[in-house]
């Protein structure tokens, strides 16, 4: 019995940085800007870096995109009242949200965060493998695109994940980040392909 209709989406355009990450647009205005570092020194969990590019239909990096990340804490609980997984601890030092602009030259987006734990699935379904939720806007994108990033080193959990199970097996690799062990710590590399061969799976959530 909905009586109103959702406001239509419009592209965030090429200057999305002004509104959402003004330092990248070239000026400081907010004392506290929402950024790409999700951790504080006391956040629980394994520190990881997530990085990738957003590639268009000819493989060129979108260098004006904004990527947002939403994830559960190290135990697999979201910092939100609708998450009632009482057996898992909350982490008051972790909101679980970050946003990053792709770099104007390299096209890379980067997050510094922790690896999330597995999250309960829907009633009657197995738990969801550790994953982060990504949401992406840019010039040329008319409606924000939602996808998920899973972790290549969680093979057993990924094999039971109820959302990956919905994805055509050929396309599942588009949702799985590659792990690289670097001197600074583990990094997960995840390129998002907007179009064409190996197009990333995007969800209507």
């Amino acid at each position, binding site marked *: 019995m*909905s*009586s*109103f*209709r*959702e*406001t*239509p*989406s*419009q*592209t*965030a*355009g090429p*200057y*999305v940085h*002004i*509104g*959402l990450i*003004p330092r990248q647009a*070239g*000026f400081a*205005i*907010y004392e*506290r800007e929402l950024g790409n570092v999700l951790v504080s020194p006391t956040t629980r969990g394994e520190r990881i870096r997530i990085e990738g590019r957003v590639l*268009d*239909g000819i493989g060129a990096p*979108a260098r*004006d995109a904004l990527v*947002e990340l*939403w994830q*559960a804490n190290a135990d697999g609980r*979201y910092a*939100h009242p*609708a*998450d*009632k997984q009482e057996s898992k601890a909350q982490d008051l030092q972790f*909101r*679980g949200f970050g946003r990053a602009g792709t770099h104007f030259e390299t096209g890379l987006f980067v997050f510094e965060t922790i690896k999330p734990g597995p*999250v309960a*699935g*829907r*009633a009657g379904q197995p738990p969801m493998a550790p994953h982060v*939720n990504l*949401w992406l806007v840019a*010039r*040329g*994108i*008319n*409606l*924000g695109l939602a996808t*998920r990033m899973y972790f290549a080193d969680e093979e057993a959990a990924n094999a039971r994940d109820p*959302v990956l199970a919905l994805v055509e097996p050929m*396309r599942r690799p588009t949702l799985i980040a590659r792990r690289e062990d670097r001197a600074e710590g583990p990094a997960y590399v995840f390129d998002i392909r*907007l*179009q064409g061969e190996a*197009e990333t*799976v*995007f*969800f*209507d*959530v």
Partner: protein
Amino acid sequence: MALDDEFLQRDLSQHPPALTPGYRSSVLRAPRAPLLSLDATLSEVTGPVFRADELGPLDHDLIRNYAHGGEPIGERIIVHGRVMDENGRGVPHTLLEVWQANAGGRYRHVNDRYLAPVDPNFGGCGRCLTDETGAYVFRTVKPGAYPFRNQINSWRPAHIHFSLFGSGLAQRLITQMYFEGDPLIRNDAIAGTIPDASAVDRLVARLDMNAAVPLDCLAYRFDIVLRGRRQTLFENKLQGA
């Protein structure tokens, strides 16, 4: 785990499709495969929560939040409205962020090369949390139209970009607000990505003389609707029985 906070399915007919060749930037950035429908999980019914004390006292006042010894040039306006869901319920305490060009149509952005000048007293962004009823208000100057490289004589109507979170990830929305009476709207390639003319009309803010401040500031009203939640009255009764 039972979810009592599921959102109504998105009515995609109210949104632009991904591929809209009239807006050329969409051509290489539109996914070709259909979106994969997902039953909501905890990952989509939750979303970030923001606190009022994370914002600065002037964050919602674009006339003053970047003033460097003067005020920005332009027509002073208040923009206000209510954020609600498809059931007409206000969406309280949600983060609303806006950005816009200055009165001359120029953005304070390292990549904007338009010849209109940057205004030293105008940043062009603001943010606020909605109140307990979903109401919001900010103050700014009316943005100017600006050209963009779609065709050689393509101009954007005056607009303000809006970003909203809602109470769960599935409600996340970015859109643009236009101004009543602007003749550039009907030829705009970006407004034109929306197939339904009545949907475009819901992006047009109305002049609101009742909210204007005499001798100071005009006002426009822009209400925003986010996705509704499924009505689960019956199931709730069962659970409570």
